[in-house]
């Protein structure tokens, strides 16, 4: 009786799998932090797109139930056992995965990390969604676009950042200032700090608008800041006069895009990320690309630096035409 039950259970279990392994297929495992997260489901969609384009790729989309390193290591062990051709991992722990990924590489499996990287010894390439200079330039570009929407030829903008000590934001602001030379019609009037707190960011945005009556655009390279600034603009009834832009999440900003407080904003696109990761893994298996350059399909070519890091693209721009499509994802 018990054995029968177990048999039935295990037979049921096999129904969940497709089973067939074609020998000439390239099997790429897309290992994510945990299953059931919208961002990674979207990346999987991108991986499937790459697989359709390439034709001879089978994607194994997998991940633990909770975001633990131990869970991912168990999965890496079973992927090694299946002798997959490549593993593309978004890691829960940059260090703990290194020994098992090193083992995978020793057994001839190509390993790349994407989104959340692992130590250099554990992978061949790490795919960053973007780079600091691209993010900086994109933020200024967005400000220029908003001024164009207002029908002006030149204008002013201010930056609403997180804390004065946030490493990422400070680097991005530095890059924004560098790329200002490419946009001679833009003037940066002030940089203020909302500390990534909703209420403080809101007050700082309100103060900016009051202090600079001619202000055209507020750029917030932080998800908390952009939301608070958009809130401030619509609360003050200045929609269409002051535009908000920067880095934010489609799910949080869809409403403000439709109301007009935000014309467009940017953040990485998880679909492109999954697509590029799959393309990279495939090309490494096939031996395409060099130490410094690996092609990734429609996303162009990844330039790999001496650390094995590469940046995929400029942040992806979201506006009224596509924000709803992504707002359900992340």
């Amino acid at each position: 009786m018990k054995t029968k039950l177990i048999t039935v259970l295990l037979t049921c279990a096999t129904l969940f799998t497709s089973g067939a392994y074609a020998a000439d297929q390239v099997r790429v495992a897309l290992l994510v932090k945990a299953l059931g997260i919208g961002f990674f489901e979207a990346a999987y969609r991108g991986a499937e797109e790459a697989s359709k384009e390439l034709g001879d790729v089978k994607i194994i989309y997998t991940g633990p139930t909770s975001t633990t390193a131990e869970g991912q290591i168990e999965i890496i062990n079973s992927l090694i056992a299946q002798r997959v051709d490549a593993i593309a991992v978004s890691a829960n722990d940059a260090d703990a995965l290194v020994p098992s990924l090193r083992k995978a590489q020793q057994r001839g499996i190509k390993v790349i990390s994407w989104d959340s990287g692992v130590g250099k010894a554990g992978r061949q390439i790490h795919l960053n969604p973007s780079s600091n200079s691209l993010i900086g330039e994109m933020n200024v570009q967005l400000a220029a676009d908003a001024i164009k929407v207002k029908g002006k030829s030149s204008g002013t903008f201010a930056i609403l950042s997180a804390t004065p000590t946030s490493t990422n934001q400070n680097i991005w602001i530095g890059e924004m200032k560098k790329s200002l030379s490419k946009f001679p019609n833009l003037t940066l009037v002030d940089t203020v700090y909302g500390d990534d707190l909703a209420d403080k960011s809101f007050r700082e945005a309100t103060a900016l608008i009051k202090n600079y009556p001619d202000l055209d655009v507020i750029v917030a390279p932080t998800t908390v800041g952009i939301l608070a600034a958009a809130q401030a603009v619509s609360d003050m009834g200045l929609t269409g006069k002051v535009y908000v832009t920067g880095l934010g999440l489609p799910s949080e900003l869809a409403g403000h895009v439709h109301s007009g407080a935000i014309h467009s904003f940017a953040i990485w696109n998880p679909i492109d990320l999954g697509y590029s990761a799959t393309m990279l893994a495939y090309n490494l298996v096939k031996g395409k690309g060099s130490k410094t350059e690996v092609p990734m399909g429609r996303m162009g070519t990844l330039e790999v630096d001496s650390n094995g890091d590469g940046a995929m693209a400029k942040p992806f721009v979201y506006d009224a035409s596509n924000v709803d499509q992504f707002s359900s994802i992340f």
Partner: protein
Amino acid sequence: MDTIIKKSTTPDALSTSRLQGFLRWETFLILIVFLVCVMNSYLSPYFLDPWNLSDATFNFTEKALIALPMAMLIIAKEIDISVAAIISLSSTLMGLVAQMGAPVYGVVFVGVLVGSACGLFNGVLVTRFKIPSIVVTIGTMSLFRGISYILLGDQVVRDYPDGFEFFGQGYVYWVFSFELVLFVLFALLFYWLLHRTTFGRYTYAIGNNPTASYYSGIKVDKHRLTLFTLVGVMSGIAAVLLTSRLGSTRPSIAMGWELSIITMVVLGGVSILGGSGTIGGVVLAVILMGLVTFGMGLLNIPGIVMTIIVGVMLIVVVSLPVLITLYKNSLKHSK
């Protein structure tokens, strides 16, 4: 002597006579393990490969090492759910002494020492202050992990001395890893301790009737204290192996392991009410769980489905003896 052991391994709630003819628990587990092996090798071409099977053992050996003393503790009517937190604290302190430049044996010594101290602390709280062990260890579970978070925060320690990686990644001979060999040795040791010594017999006695054991002259509290410390020692050893396997320490290490360890023990036929169970059963349950999860991993079954299957398996296996007794009773009545 054999009959006494057999009697002591059947739950008190069920009389031995009704279970005559019913195969022993271990026989069933062996049967299922065999079945799972056959199914796995049929379903996946990668299953029957010595290196793959060896890799699979890494997924459970550390948990299994703790399951051994945990089985004895549960047989003695106590429980310790702070074991994963002990791993965390032990690994954290190992990391800190490693950062200060301690050699390999120093790091290992600290790991085992911290584990033992945590186990002793649990034991003292339970025996001295007469607090139920589940309450004590819920508290220390947060306490131990909390200390790890205070000490490390969001930091990570990865400067372990050279040679330390052997414990979690090294092989003794061919495919037999250090972890696996250590588990086999400890399984034999705990088999001897539970089934071949008076210490083991006392454990069953306390689990079946603490009061009667007390009046028979068994030092019940001292015995419990020893068992808690034993769980701590093994958690410390598991922490050494896991830290070495990961090559790094974070406070979130081994998160949620206490439940998989208790699952192994219960699946092994140890009564959660205390008083019965064998080391053989626990070892078989460990192997069964390892093979089932590894087999499902090879088929890329999503983790959520895996959890459901393991849960159902646990309920079925645990409720089976009760169901069979009820079934046999109803047969008797209908005659």
